[in-house]
């Protein structure tokens, strides 16, 4: 992040200035954040920042102190002279911080007072991201600070248009979850489980061969990559059902490979391995797909609770049975040769 001392009139308030250009370091930080490296370390120092040369009538934007949130905002403020008030959300994004309450009324009031906004601007307006609304009581902010909370658009890329018209259209107010947004969320899901999967795959490789080893990786890719990426194309509403569906599609080739293996194995061995694949891969895929609910902005708590009660028992039975079957096949030396 490019932070410099400002030469403007705001200097007496010791306000740092930030540019709207993202540096190579910023992009590297974003990349690392996307891959869950130093997960809670992507922070901006909370407080007030100046963009350009703000005057006393310049708008004040509010955001979280997560670098991805802060940078998404500032890169969309080019050609604007304004302030950014950064709340201390412990390095968590606006949406999650609003849910946790750190992007909240008390913190906002505290930051407004700490930054002496009353002295700095001649208006009483704060522009907040719409997705911060679950943590903010706008009428209480007004009562306690005199500042009116204006909710800007969901996406920072719409800020320029919002500033031109002074209003967010219905389209700007709707949260979307397009292909690219789903795709960039998958590395975090994968990075957290892949180390364990590689251990399982390595063990399977040595005790059962390359195909069972690859099936472990395929199961994870089905639930943590394919299901999120193809989400709207997969039938069923529940994430678990979507994960089961993709898991079965991925498991079928493994099952066919086992059944059609050109070898001297007994038929029961072939059927055993095929059954194990058909039980294990969909169970793992469904569980990972269920976990992806936390990455979206359209699953409700009561809906996810219903889904957990409805599917996790089935997943557990399938996984347990499949695992026991695979262990039995391995221990009894019943490999596909």
């Amino acid at each position, binding site marked *: 992040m490019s932070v410099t001392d400002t030469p403007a009139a705001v200097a007496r308030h010791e306000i740092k200035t930030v540019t709207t250009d993202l540096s190579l370091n910023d992009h590297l930080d974003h990349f690392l954040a996307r891959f869950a490296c130093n997960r809670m370390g992507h922070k901006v120092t909370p407080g007030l920042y100046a963009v350009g040369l703000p005057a006393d009538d310049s708008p004040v934007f509010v955001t979280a102190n997560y670098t991805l949130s802060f940078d998404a905002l500032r890169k969309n403020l080019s050609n604007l002279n304004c302030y950014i008030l950064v709340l201390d959300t412990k390095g968590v994004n606006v949406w*999650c911080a609003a*849910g946790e309450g750190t992007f909240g009324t008390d913190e906002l009031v505290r930051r407004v007072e700490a930054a002496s906004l009353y002295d700095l601007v001649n208006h009483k307006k704060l522009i907040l991201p719409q997705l911060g609304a679950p943590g903010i009581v706008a009428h209480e902010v007004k009562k306690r600070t005199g500042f009116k909370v204006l909710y800007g658009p969901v996406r920072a890329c719409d800020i320029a248009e919002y500033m031109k018209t002074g209003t967010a259209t219905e389209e700007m107010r709707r949260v979307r979850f397009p292909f690219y947004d789903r795709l960039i969320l998958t590395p975090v899901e994968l990075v957290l489980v892949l180390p364990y999967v590689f251990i399982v795959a390595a063990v399977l490789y040595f005790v059962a061969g390359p195909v069972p080893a690859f099936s472990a990786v395929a199961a994870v890719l089905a639930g943590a990559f394919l299901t999120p990426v193809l989400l709207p194309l997969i039938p069923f509403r529940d994430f678990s059902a979507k994960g089961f569906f993709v898991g079965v599609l991925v498991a079928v080739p493994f099952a066919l490979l086992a059944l059609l293996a050109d070898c001297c194995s007994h038929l029961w061995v072939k059927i055993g391995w095929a059954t194990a694949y058909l039980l294990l891969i969909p169970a793992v895929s469904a569980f990972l797909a*269920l976990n992806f*609910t936390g990455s979206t902005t359209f699953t409700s*708590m*009561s809906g996810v609770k219903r889904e957990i009660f409805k599917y996790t028992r089935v997943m557990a039975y399938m996984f347990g049975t499949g695992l026991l079957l695979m262990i039995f096949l391995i221990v009894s030396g019943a490999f596909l040769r």
Partner: protein
Amino acid sequence: MSDIVTHEDNTLVYRPDDCVNCGMCIEVCPHAVFAPGERVVNVVRHSSCMECGACVMNCPTTALAVEAGVGCAEALIWQAIKGGDAPACCGPSVKGETCC
């Protein structure tokens, strides 16, 4: 007196009699659950509510109620295992950090 509006898909409750038609719920809802009405706001996409609680927080009256929380399976499973209040965001991950 208008009926209280509920839906089987979620916990959002709307009491039209308490609505002052300020439009804040329309402004903050990311799923266009609400739409402007002549006298009060209308609930037009009730099943799309994902219980974020933004409308309730910003409603100046008691027209809206919801059991707010995040639809995150990981957080809810952690809560079931470890107990405690409803989680706001994901529970501890495998690295012992919080999500996001």
